[in-house]
């Protein structure tokens, strides 16, 4: 009961193997994908990606991107995908704080606000993942 999952960033292929299921942070809420899912393209927002392989659940913090499902294959194209081990809590906290400070000083620029909010959401996703494990 497995299908192929590829997680790809512009910089490299993060993951490519068969998994039993995968849960993705879709822009309209979390969605789970099992085998034989209909062909689908959907945007993703920063959050957690969860997949089940050999009875073990693995989690990654992901950024913005989209997912493409075709027959027996799920491709996640994303600008960030990072495992729990690779997250440095202090660094992320600092980056998040910087973004929050910037958000307060940014004024009315809606685009800038949106960009910073995305940044904060990404940081939050990484921190949540890191802290959950403890």
């Amino acid at each position, binding site marked *: 009961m497995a299908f192929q999952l*590829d997680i*790809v*960033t*512009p*910089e*490299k*292929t993060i993951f490519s193997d068969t998994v039993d299921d995968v849960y993705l942070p*879709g*822009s*309209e809420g979390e*969605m789970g994908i099992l085998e034989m899912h*209909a*062909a*689908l*393209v*959907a*945007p993703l927002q920063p959050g957690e990606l969860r997949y089940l392989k050999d009875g073990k659940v693995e989690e990654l913090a992901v950024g*913005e*991107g*989209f997912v*493409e499902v*075709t*027959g027996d294959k799920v*491709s996640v*194209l994303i*600008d960030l995908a990072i495992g729990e081990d690779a997250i440095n809590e202090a660094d992320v906290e600092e980056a998040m704080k910087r973004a929050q400070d910037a958000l307060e000083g940014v004024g009315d620029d809606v*685009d800038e606000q949106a*960009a910073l909010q995305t940044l904060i959401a990404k940081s939050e996703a990484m921190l949540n993942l890191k802290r959950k494990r403890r």
Partner: protein
Amino acid sequence: MANLRDIRRRIKSVKSTSQITKAMELVAAAKMKKAQNQALAGRDYADKLNKVLVNLKANTEEESHPLLAKRDGGKELMLVISTERGLCGGLNTNLFKKIHTESSEDAHYVTSGKKLRQTLAKIGKELIADWQVADPVPFNDAKPIAKFLTEKFLSGEYDKITVAFNNFVSTLNQTPEVVQLLPIESADLGEKQDYEGVGEDTVSETDKSAAMNVEYEFEPNAEGVLDKLLPLYINFQIYQMLVEARASEHSARMVAMKAATDNAKNMIKDLTLEYNKARQAAITAELLEITTAMKAME
């Protein structure tokens, strides 16, 4: 015949120059390898993005999206990707020539890289922004550039956004190119472009026809997905071009430095020959003097 000490001094200076150029050659070679690998690593992403875009195009009305809409005005904004540092052969000069012939007279410029920024400023072109991009190119560096250009386009300030960069063909061959970024030519959308990935094909024909046969569901709908995807596409294009330009820079520098090292070696050889000749001449002269003196004493 030149002075012995002068020749020695020149040999020494050429030698130290050749050591520097040799070191630069090695550094450039290592960085070039990295940049090439980076361009290759992006290929998976490019493949998949292209496939989805081809499909999306079939499912949405053409020209419906503002990023796809052609405009009549001719106001052009050009992103020029040059190098931060020199000593890379004719790379920047060639690119400049290309820009000169391809861009419209009153185009405004945005730059990345010091070299052509200075040149463009010198000839009095209007520069409106400049970015520094780290090495190796991080994907995050492409985003603010893409965002800036998209905004300028959508606000109507400019009707056309183009990018000038050096396309990496091979280690010995880089070609300057000017590519239209916005509006996205819907004919180009999802098509293979030869600067995506180094050298070889990105999307094979079979891949593309396979993609066309799949009927996707779009969540929430095709327009919504297109809305999200086009900015990603632009980000990725800029990233890819930055990587290409970087690979070109390093390989051009490697080749230039290799030539410089070879020239220095030849020069050292010639100078050493001259030095030995001069030394021999001096010894002969000295011997002559001694024998003449001895003859005179007899």
